[in-house]
């Protein structure tokens, strides 16, 4: 196991604070950079993310070339607000519309590859309350300054904003510590060096991202790491400390459903890598219980776990992106 990776491939955002240098590197390498924000009902945070990125990394420093919002069917004002502040806004169902329609974050990220133009794509969750442009430039830093790094992942403190409008200084990352880290320890000990494998902020070269498959839902972060690790090794990955990210708190049941999807993705991956031999079909339903009028009632969530193939295998994509 390579224990050195944590030292050599871990950075702090402050190392890339000189944005001018990043712009110079980008121009020298003749790269285009796209920022993608996957959304579903994010009207409270989407404007802030677009405005700050546009102001700091487009208007003041020409580091990012486009901001693209890919939406899963918001019913609030997310799309309207995003358009009003100048982002390119797409509904996922209208991208490659002839394909079967799925809904989920992974679907948005995968389809974003088709509509964006960048050689590098930055993905940021759209619910970051304390958004700062370091979330983007720090993820770009290792990609632009080190030729061998092709994929970067964020980690940070995760204070949670509670309903009482107070900030709790600890918490978050529960699915990571209870599910992912034990699984990585069991099957891929090297990957335990990734501090927050489920963080929703990452960036990578298109040449990698177009060659891996994308689960349509929560499993996308796990599969992305496993696939990049298997295909190109740990050294192409770097992680960047972004200091602090305030996010919405999720209740335990929601985390349970997230854990279900991640486990399913993980098991499928290790089975296809022949690390386990699963002699049974996995079920597709997450069953939780709630107490209604003194009686327990099952809450059943059907989660099929569809997966998109590497987008390079889609003819329309190849046609569009080989032309550039």
């Amino acid at each position, binding site marked *: 196991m390579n224990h050195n990776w944590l030292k050599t491939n871990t950075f702090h955002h402050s190392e890339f604070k000189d944005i001018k240098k990043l712009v110079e590197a980008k121009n020298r390498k003749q790269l285009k950079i796209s920022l993608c924000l996957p959304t579903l009902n994010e009207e409270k945070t989407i404007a802030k993310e677009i405005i*700050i990125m546009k*102001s700091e990394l487009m*208007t*003041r420093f020409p580091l990012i070339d486009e901001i693209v919002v890919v939406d899963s069917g918001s019913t609030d004002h997310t799309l309207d607000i995003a358009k009003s502040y*100048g982002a390119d806004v797409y509904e996922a169902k209208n991208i490659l519309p002839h394909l079967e329609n799925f809904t989920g974050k992974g679907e948005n990220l995968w389809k974003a590859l088709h509509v964006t133009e960048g050689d590098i794509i930055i993905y940021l969750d759209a619910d970051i309350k304390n958004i700062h442009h370091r979330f983007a430039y720090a993820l770009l830093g290792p990609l632009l300054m080190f030729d061998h790094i092709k994929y970067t992942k964020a980690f940070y403190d995760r204070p949670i904003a509670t309903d009482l*409008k*107070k*900030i709790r200084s600890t918490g978050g990352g529960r699915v990571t510590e209870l599910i992912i880290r034990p699984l990585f320890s069991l099957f891929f000990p090297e990957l335990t060096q990734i501090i927050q494998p489920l963080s929703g902020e990452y960036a990578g070269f298109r040449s990698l991202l177009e060659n891996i498959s994308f689960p349509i839902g929560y499993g996308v972060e796990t599969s992305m790491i496993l696939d990049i690790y298997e295909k190109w090794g740990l050294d192409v990955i770097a992680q960047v400390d972004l200091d602090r990210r305030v996010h919405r708190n999720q209740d335990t049941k929601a985390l349970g459903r997230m854990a279900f999807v991640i486990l399913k993705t993980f098991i499928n991956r290790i089975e296809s890598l022949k690390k386990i031999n699963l002699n049974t079909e996995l079920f597709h339903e997450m069953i939780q219980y709630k107490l209604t009028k003194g009686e327990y009632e099952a809450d059943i969530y059907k989660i099929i776990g569809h997966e998109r193939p590497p987008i390079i295998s889609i003819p329309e994509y190849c046609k569009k992106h080989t032309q550039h």
Partner: protein
Amino acid sequence: MDTILKRLPSFIDQIKEIQEVIISNIVLIGQIPAPTYHEQARTEIFLERLSDAQSDYSATSDYNIPIGIIKGTSNESRAPIFVVAHLDTFFNADIDHNYIVRKASISGPGILDNSLGVGVLASLPIIFKHLNLQFESDIVLAGVPQSIGKGNLQGIRQLLDTWEGPIRGAVIVEGDELGRLNYYSEGIIRGEITCNVLPANGGGNRYKPNAIIILNKVIDEILAMELPLRPRARVIIGKINGGFKHGVIAYNARLGFEIQSDSEEMVKRMHSEIEDIVNGIGHENHVRLELNIISNLTPATLRYRHPLVKSTVSIMKALGLSPASDSGESELSIFLARKIPAVTLGVTEGKNVHLENASMKIKPMFTGIAQIIGVIMAIDSGVCDEP
């Protein structure tokens, strides 16, 4: 002046062109908590934003006041023009300082008082560049800490005490409310009366004095004070708290008040009267009754016919605003007390100014900024230079 007035309306749309830069500054600065005496983190980000905006000089003063300077073009030594906004807010650090930006508004704690003002201040170097504006005087942009409440305007006092050389004029930027024009300030004494029932008080529990009722007596006597119509004078009873629970006599209570008058002598006289009331009631009831001054200001004014006031009124009217004048007890008082012509202006419209869900409108902000720039241009053209 006519040239300035003609140019101003076109500024509004040009400023809007870089709205994301201005909103970013408001949000990035405003989401950093800055209760009075704990403004360090906000000081740092304000300074960082000034530096990022490539102002010619940015640093903190000896008293840790962040300032940025945009160098003037004049070869002769013109005195600088100050543009200031207070950094501190009423909200504690444990409140979620999350700002929500929508199509037409921004909301969050302290947005109007005074994150908006500070955000606009930090944006001025970029706005000036965008409008292709240069000034003869240096423009000093200062975010001042320790302004509100017990801060007692210490930040601006320190800045001006240690500033060497004359100052040509000043604009104080407040988020709330577009249309305000403050050019005079009343004298005030802001005080607190605390009542503590002494443990050794005789008479047993049954007849123990009640701190709330004692303060009620104080209020009654303050309200009975005879106040003249001229000079104008009043006492505001602004805050009260005390006691533990419904069935227990209150052993302590606290009353916050403010004496306001356009005569310094009247402020002093009223303070002396309230002091007598407090001493008398404390003595008669065997309780510890104390009066403490939290802050004070001497009255100061520019006359309405002062060229700065007249120019500001013209500028506001040229932008379709109706100036509303009232006394302003902010940094303005400190400038005026030092004979530096100054006005306080508001940036936009909003609601719930001092609540956690305070909200500001985005569109009027561009007019508010154009107005501030107009006044800076007017000062630079010499309206404050006449004796």
